[in-house]
């Protein structure tokens, strides 16, 4: 196997919690706590988990948009932590990000042309033919060259997200972090943007870190998935394996909570009790033990490490003893519906 494009090791981010008149540090929120992950070029790593699990913080740490408390990020062999501001900026050309909210991530005072040529100017790319490059970029994301003169408010949510994608592509990066990039979009537009992201990956050999709370979306686009809970990766496997045989009780509950679009299908549902504990005060031992129906005394004392077997890593003391819930057999394929839907594929 080739050396990974991106390698995160022991990555940790603690935010201090301040209290009282003199803002003394009274504790810390462990947003990300010792995460090891790697990503090959041209692949997609999905990161899933619920609000507050640290997935967005992890995405920002990977680009060194925020400084880690501990740990290391290697991008194509370079340790990002050792780079000075100028070198880091040069390195950022290879790594871009697309944000969730297409309304707040574009400057309303700039035309689309200005938004797209700014990264070119910063990195001194395509000098003298930036207008042409902007037109190319707009074309790549399914917009037209004449859109360059318009302002963000003249576009719909889906179109704005295309502009955000074009801006990320402007500097020809190798890696794009997509942070809930399709979550704010309506489902029909979301499908358009997902198809676009997949096309771009094939054409340009991009690697994605795809952060989302929607498991069906992540399953569709990711080659590998990391499941996070309270700042830690609890399970890591390739997409097919994770969905076919989830090992961690949290992953199992997460999968069984997704509503299926088949009204009459029976399945075993695992309902998690209670809420997510506060990341400022995570439970001792396994962080999931307070909501886990399989928890034993060990779980509240020892923190399980992420251990790999057959290319499938899980952080649970007792995963071997836990049976995955019975999956309902797949529904018969609706050929009429599939044929009708094939008319929509563009």
């Amino acid at each position, binding site marked *: 196997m080739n050396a990974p494009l991106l390698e995160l090791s022991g990555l940790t981010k603690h935010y201090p919690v301040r209290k009282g008149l003199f803002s003394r540090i009274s504790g810390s929120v462990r947003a990300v706590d010792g995460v090891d992950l790697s990503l090959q070029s041209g692949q997609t790593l999905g990161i899933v988990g619920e609000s507050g699990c640290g997935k967005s913080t992890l995405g920002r740490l990977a680009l060194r948009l925020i400084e880690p408390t501990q740990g290391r990020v290697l991008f194509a062999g370079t340790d990002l932590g050792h780079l000075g501001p100028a070198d880091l900026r040069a390195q950022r050309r290879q790594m871009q990000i697309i944000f969730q909210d297409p309304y707040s991530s574009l400057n309303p005072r700039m035309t689309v042309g200005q938004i797209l040529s700014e990264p070119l100017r910063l990195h001194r790319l395509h000098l003298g033919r930036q207008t042409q490059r902007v037109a190319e970029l707009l074309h790549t994301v399914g917009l037209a060259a004449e859109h360059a003169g318009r302002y963000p408010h003249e576009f719909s949510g889906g179109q704005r997200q295309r502009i955000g994608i074009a801006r990320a592509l402007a500097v020809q990066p190798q890696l794009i972090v997509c942070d809930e990039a399709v979550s704010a979009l309506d489902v029909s537009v979301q499908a358009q943007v997902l198809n676009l992201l997949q096309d771009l990956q094939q054409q340009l050999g991009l690697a994605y870190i795809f952060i989302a709370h929607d498991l069906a979306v992540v399953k569709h686009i990711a080659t590998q998935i990391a499941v996070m809970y309270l700042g830690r990766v609890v399970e890591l496997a390739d997409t097919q394996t994770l969905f076919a045989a989830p090992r961690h009780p949290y992953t199992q509950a997460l999968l069984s909570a997704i509503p299926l679009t088949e009204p009459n299908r029976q399945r075993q549902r695992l309902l998690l009790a209670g809420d997510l504990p506060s990341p400022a005060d995570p439970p001792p031992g396994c962080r999931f033990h307070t909501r886990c129906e399989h928890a034993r005394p060990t779980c509240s004392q020892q923190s399980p490490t992420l251990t790999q077997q057959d290319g499938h890593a899980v952080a649970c003391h007792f995963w071997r003893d836990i049976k995955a819930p019975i999956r309902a057999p797949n529904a018969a394929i609706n050929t009429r*519906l599939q044929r*009708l*839907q094939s008319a929509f594929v563009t």
Partner: protein
Amino acid sequence: MALLEVTGLSTHFATEAGEFAAVDGISFSIEAGKTLAIVGESGCGKSVTSLSIMGLVGPAGRVAAGSIRFDGRELAGLAPAEMQALRGKAMAMIFQEPMSSLNPAFTVGEQIVEVLLRHRPIGRQEAQALALAMLERVRIPAPAQRFHEHPHKLSGGMRQRVMIAMALANSPRLLIADEPTTALDVTIQAQILELMKSLQQDSGTAVLLITHDLGVVAEVADEVAVMYAGRIVEQAPVAALFSQPQHPYTVGLLGSMPHLDRTQARLSAISGQVPGLFERPLGCSFAPRCPFAVARCLLEKPPLMEMGGQHRAACWLAPLDADALVPQASERALA
């Protein structure tokens, strides 16, 4: 007789550019104890429909036409005081964002007490006991303690439980739930949907569920109405809608969702976008995005037509026959 019967409802909004129909002549009904889901994307008019029923469209909007019969009584044109007597009692509503629907200055207990006192001839002590019982019913842990807490102390899922407790406090006959789980994480969503289902079974309340999420629809609805550009384009019992959709928009919507069981190389995304409020086409509003659209679709608006088995679709080509339909590339280019 249906508990709620909406006929030919049109709700208009005044803007600087003129008046437009957010809801454009829709009809549906809900029986007691049943759940009707209205599903559609942003701007299709699903929320305005629910606000129209509750008499909450606000100063810019007005119910321009149609009838809303609730338990045999006409709501359209009812005096504000009479609407107020109904809201929170016979019909109640829960919203997407529990944080902005709860008053941050009062404890959750007080807010439920207020709803009870507003509509029932009971004393404060009795109301407090009932409010506490409601918190228990929606399975809030340590309800006696939570009763005295302010909304900001509660998690999103707990706040939504409080909203449900408030809405059900006076045993409404109709509950309107507008995106009740959209702001919640998926494991919390599963808890809330489970709770709503079991409370409905106990009380026989009719539910009008407004959502963009077809997964949620499949989980809880008995019947579904799909809205597009202010109109109902398809309506059917839930199983039929998912297995035998008859409107191309529904077909496209189902194909846009990534499937959990199957791997798909590409999603069958619907090209283009929803027409602007003042750009609605002369014919079928979906025609410019429809791969099957023929000349008639561009010129004439199809009414909601009976397909048999309580299945209705507003499409000139329905029932859709996969063998006979040919994608009409040229027509789309024309549009």
